[in-house]
């Protein structure tokens, strides 16, 4: 909506829409940061305020919602909700632990890899939700500290999620807004993520390798696990795994035919719902649908919608154009400086604020810089820098990403607490190290 005229007359009490929308954005962020009010409630409240105050009207608010992102998230949530009931994730986790002969150091490494791969193709929350309980089970059986497993799971999920379009919500937002495809993400982010993962696993080994020792008798307990018994429904597994693969292929090839990821994910979800309901009566089909829909995080989807509207308000009022111009003038319009500033800025801010609202706000800001920087092609490294920073910055603190909070919760349920400071002692250096690697990668790949 760049260049759209600002409708001053409709704004409540004749207030300046720029100040009003900025005030609403700051208010929304401040309450989100305070964690005193549910994040969905506050995002929707901010959205309503933007409309009621007259900064934008309802039609403009709806046009600000990125339904490609909403469709992609909803579709993937439905697919994963069906896939997770098959027991395949438990199977892979137990199988991989046995492949390293239940050596705790090997389990730490292999689980980091498994979670990183899961996180690249599923959402981070699902990945940690499925792998962390098994990691805790194995730590308990081996009588070793669960702490390295919990921390490594957080870090691996954030790194793995960086690699693909669907790996982390910031990437979905960026991909949708900048029209970057699944393959664009994989080609541009994948190599750096692979390097980062190898380095971080080496760091894990250096930090915890010596302390993770288990007796042969303890390891035998893991080797007795029967992973094949975790598969609950082989038919459902085949169908849902095939559908997941087809959806990923759809992400890769769909863009060539004008089919965007949101449509691919929703098509895959409804086809899967249909296929797993085949042969069931009406009641059975309704029960299947209800079960799948219960797993969809409606609160998260509404949170996204609310944020889109709040950001639309500041975008329409011209704030993001002003900030974009300031950023360009601060970096002198130099693409290298702009990209690397974006990388570090987004990493540091994503460590302290939720990276989803941050990226939702940054997207129109980056878009506003396009003309002054010389076009979409010049801007592409800035998008990758934003994605690297937002995803890797999540490792900087326990509140840096939703998956971090989820792992803390899972640990507490099993009686293991991770303190904010104890995590920061590992998380902050690893965040700095990984962002530094991304810095070198972005510089060498796009500016040398």
């Amino acid at each position, binding site marked *: 909506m760049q260049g759209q005229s600002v409708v001053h007359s409709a704004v409540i009490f004749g207030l300046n829409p720029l100040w009003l929308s900025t005030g609403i954005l700051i208010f929304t962020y401040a309450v989100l940061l305070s964690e005193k009010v549910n994040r969905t409630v506050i995002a929707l409240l901010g959205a309503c305020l933007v409309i009621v105050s007259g900064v934008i009207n309802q039609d403009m608010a709806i046009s600000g919602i990125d339904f490609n992102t909403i469709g992609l998230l909803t579709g993937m949530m439905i697919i994963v909700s069906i896939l997770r009931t098959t027991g395949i994730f438990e199977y892979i986790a137990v199988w991989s632990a046995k492949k390293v002969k239940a050596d705790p150091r090997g389990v730490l490494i292999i689980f980091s890899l498994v979670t990183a791969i899961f996180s690249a193709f599923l959402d981070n929350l699902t990945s940690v939700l499925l792998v962390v309980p098994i990691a805790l089970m194995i730590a308990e059986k081996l009588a070793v500290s669960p702490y390295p497993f919990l921390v490594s799971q957080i870090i691996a999920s954030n790194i793995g999620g960086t690699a693909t379009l669907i790996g982390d919500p910031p990437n979905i937002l960026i991909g949708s807004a900048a029209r970057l495809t699944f393959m664009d993400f994989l080609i541009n982010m994948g190599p750096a993520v692979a390097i980062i993962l190898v380095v971080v696993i080496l760091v894990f080994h250096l930090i915890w390798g010596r302390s993770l020792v288990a007796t042969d008798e303890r390891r035998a307990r893991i080797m007795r696990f029967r992973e094949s018994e*975790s598969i609950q429904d082989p038919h459902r597994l085949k169908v849902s795994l095939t559908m997941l693969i087809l959806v990923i292929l759809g992400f890769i090839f769909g863009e060539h035919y004008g089919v965007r990821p949101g449509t691919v994910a929703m098509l895959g979800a409804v086809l899967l719902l249909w296929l797993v309901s085949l042969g069931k009566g009406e009641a059975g089909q309704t029960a299947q649908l209800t079960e799948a829909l219960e797993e969809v995080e409606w609160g998260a989807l509404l949170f996204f919608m609310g944020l889109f509207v709040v950001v639309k308000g500041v975008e329409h009022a011209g704030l993001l154009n002003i900030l974009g111009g300031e950023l360009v003038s601060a970096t002198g319009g130099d693409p290298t400086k702009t990209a690397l500033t974006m990388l570090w800025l987004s990493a540091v801010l994503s460590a302290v604020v939720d990276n989803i609202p941050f990226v939702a706000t940054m997207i129109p800001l980056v878009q506003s810089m396009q003309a002054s920087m010389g076009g979409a092609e010049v801007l592409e490294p800035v998008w990758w820098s934003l994605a690297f920073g937002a995803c890797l910055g999540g490792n900087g603190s326990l509140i840096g990403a939703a998956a971090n909070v989820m792992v803390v919760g899972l640990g507490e349920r099993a009686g293991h607490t991770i303190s904010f400071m104890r995590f920061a002692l590992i998380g902050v250096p690893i965040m700095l190290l990984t962002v530094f690697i991304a810095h070198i990668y972005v510089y060498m790949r796009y500016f040398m």
Partner: protein
Amino acid sequence: MDCGTVMAPVKTQLYAEDPAGQAIDFMCDKHMGLVPVVDHKNTFVGMISGDRLMHLMLPGSLMAMQGKKRVSYLNESREEFQERLDALRARPLGELVDRINLNVVKKNTPLSDALMLISEKQFVVPVVDDDDKLLGAISFFTILHWIKKGY
């Protein structure tokens, strides 16, 4: 009708400092599935039940699993169960009792309130005074017994 009229007195032998092993033996001997736990001043501390003890005997990491817990892959040996039972037996009852989801009533609480609690899957409803001293308990069987006696 109030709860004080219907409640049955509880002569508990289980105290918060007692090891869980004592509760396990007591429940096995008396064939009881649910027993109140008090301190030495007879202040109600909570209930200990068979399903609570079974829950505590599971691997702690299972508590991290959300939704349906599918653990058929575990294939545990008798020794592993024995280890966890031995560890559980040594823990004091006070830290094991369930008080979070447990409702208590007073003597003057209308009986219908206790009936509602029992119908909502709370098998036994403890009756306490204003100082939380345990006075008695009401269960489905207490009510049947009271109706049968006709007073």
